[in-house]
């Protein structure tokens, strides 16, 4: 009975052994190590570099890219189809005009 009583007391003491506990603190230079790790993990630009990885910015850039592509495709489809026919004759005539080589007939 005495043994049981001692054991109960010991259990209560063990349960209360964290009373009055003081907060543990990390080792000194925690921030220096944290910063070094962030620079390593988050890219060469360090903690400032992560701004470019923000989802809002990434989605905006992606949306802009898609929008520009869509505009380009629409413009290309709606533009009148014009065929540029380049023949030897037209080129020759153009050169002749440029250099004033045309034969004048009176």
């Amino acid at each position, binding site marked *: 009975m005495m043994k049981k009583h001692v*054991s109960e007391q*010991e259990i209560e003491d063990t*349960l209360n052994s*964290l009373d009055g*506990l003081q907060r543990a603190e990390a080792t000194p230079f925690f921030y220096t190590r*944290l910063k070094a790790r962030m620079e390593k993990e988050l890219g060469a630009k360090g903690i400032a570099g992560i*701004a470019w*990885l923000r989802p809002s910015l990434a989605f905006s850039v992606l949306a802009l890219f898609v929008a520009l592509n869509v505009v380009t495709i629409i413009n290309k489809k709606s533009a009148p189809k014009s065929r540029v026919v380049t023949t030897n004759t037209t080129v020759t005539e153009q050169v002749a005009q440029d250099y004033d080589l045309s034969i004048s007939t009176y």
Partner: protein
Amino acid sequence: MYVEPVIIFRTQATLNEQQLILAVQQKEEPAFARLVADYQPMVYNTVLGLVQHDQDAEDIAQEVFIQVYQSISSFKGESKLSTWIYRICITKSLDWIKHRQRKKRFGFIQSIFGSSEETTLQLPDFHHPGVQLANKERAAVLFKAINLLPENQRIAFVLQKMEGLGQMDIAAIMNQSEGAIESLLQRAKQNLRKSLHDYHKTD
């Protein structure tokens, strides 16, 4: 214009919590340094209580602050900043504990085939540096028993005993009612008593 880093840091020291959050959201490094300085003891102590390993606790505490830096733009201020950081501490610590358990199981399988990996993964007794000297041995026994608690009971007990939080704060962190936390803590103490009884029987 060049401004001394010390002066910037002093300016940050005068910021209130809301201003500090805004500054960190804008990725201002002095503000982040101030946030780390303010919350490092809370983060490290909580993580240490859950993982019971000082070196790993420091690694996890670093991960917590990296997560804070990356996710603070999504912090809406619906809870206190400390509540939000406590939640990150708990998630990161539990992830690490699960990772350790997986390694332990893998080590056990390896030991069946003759490798000695399992024995190296057994953690030694944990001695929290903030425990009073007279309670050192008892606290080490209690930490072993805490490890045997179900996850939710362990979290609630650690937050109460190691961070000195009240049931209302624990309820906010764990997203449960105060009543649920009260019953969780009661069950935690019952389970701890049972584990300690078993420990003393075999002792």
